[in-house]
């Protein structure tokens, strides 16, 4: 009875990843990220994605503060924040988040405030969807690691 839990969890993980690729939430860059994880750096994907979450949330908060300010006019600053978001989202393979950030950035380049507000909402939505999916993925992986450690008595 060894490892049945592991197999089921692995199947769940594979199914979730396949779905995320199919939806375009993730792209092949995510696979590149997984390749960087190995026995010398066994938690790399988890660690780097958590850094991505921390930094992204700071950037999103700043963007919201900037745009909520009635006196707002610093579109260049918005652009700089978005460059960072575009870059880091690309690096982890977060294709949809990256794309909506690019669209948001175009609105900021045109100094289009309503467009920016809409853009921010879309980015926040996609970002939170991604975050929930990643949490689910990490939970499944954690469970699989635990299941792999269980030995049933013969």
């Amino acid at each position, binding site marked *: 009875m060894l490892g049945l839990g592991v197999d089921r969890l692995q199947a769940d993980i594979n199914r979730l990843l396949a779905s995320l690729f199919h939806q375009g939430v993730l792209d092949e*860059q995510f696979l*590149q990220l997984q*390749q*960087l994880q*190995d026995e*010398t*750096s066994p938690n*790399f994907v988890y*660690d*780097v994605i958590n*850094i*991505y979450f921390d*930094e992204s949330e700071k950037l999103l908060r700043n963007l919201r503060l900037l745009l909520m300010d009635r006196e707002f006019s610093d579109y260049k600053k918005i652009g*700089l924040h978005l*460059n*960072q978001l*575009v*870059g*880091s989202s*690309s*690096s982890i393979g977060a294709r949809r988040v990256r794309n909506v950030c690019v669209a948001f950035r175009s609105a900021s380049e045109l100094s289009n405030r309503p467009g920016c507000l809409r853009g921010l909402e879309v980015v926040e939505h996609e970002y939170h969807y991604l975050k929930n999916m990643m949490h689910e993925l990490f939970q499944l992986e954690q469970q699989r690691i635990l299941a792999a450690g269980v030995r049933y008595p013969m």
Partner: protein
Amino acid sequence: MGVETESKFHVLAVDDSLFDRKMIERLLQKSSCQVTTVDSGSKALEFLGLRVDDNDPNALSTSPQIHQEVEINLIITDYCMPGMTGYDLLKKVKESAAFRSIPVVIMSSENVPARISRCLEEGAEEFFLKPVKLADLTKLKPHMMKTKLKKESEKPVAIEEIVVSKPEIEKEEDSSVIEILPLHQELESEQLEPMLCSNKRKAMEEVISTDRSRPKYNDITTSV
């Protein structure tokens, strides 16, 4: 543990973003490099041993405590950083007699051709678009090999003679070998291989024409 640290290349990575530092560090480690990361250009210069005068950022002096035991084989830096940009850092390194031979690579998430040319003209070996991939880092090995071999070579004059007498070999080799030829030989080689790495060639033409005193003759590689 660091069993092979003496033979590993040591890269100094510069980026203001923690996320990007984490990424480039792992990429470099995966490529068997030892990595030191810093979050700014001024910290990079400090690490190298260049003292940055706060009153006159253009003044550079080598601090008494040069990190001689830390041999850096390559600097890889983000372009867009607050304060000192990657381009500013590149310039400072190339203007320093002690460190100009260290290859510098620039990274950027934006594809701006004018920016790329400017960096290559200033002496950057490569310009990587983010996200940087493992495959990109394989391009770094030849540049890092130069600094290792430079330190190990004892007879620069003799090696120069060997290279001068075999121009056909340089044609097949990495374009960076062209740098070690005497000036007249460089111009000849460029006529022979006009298609060899146009960015590099452009960078070298610029250097030759502006008569900058880059010590190219000292960067000897035993590429025979």
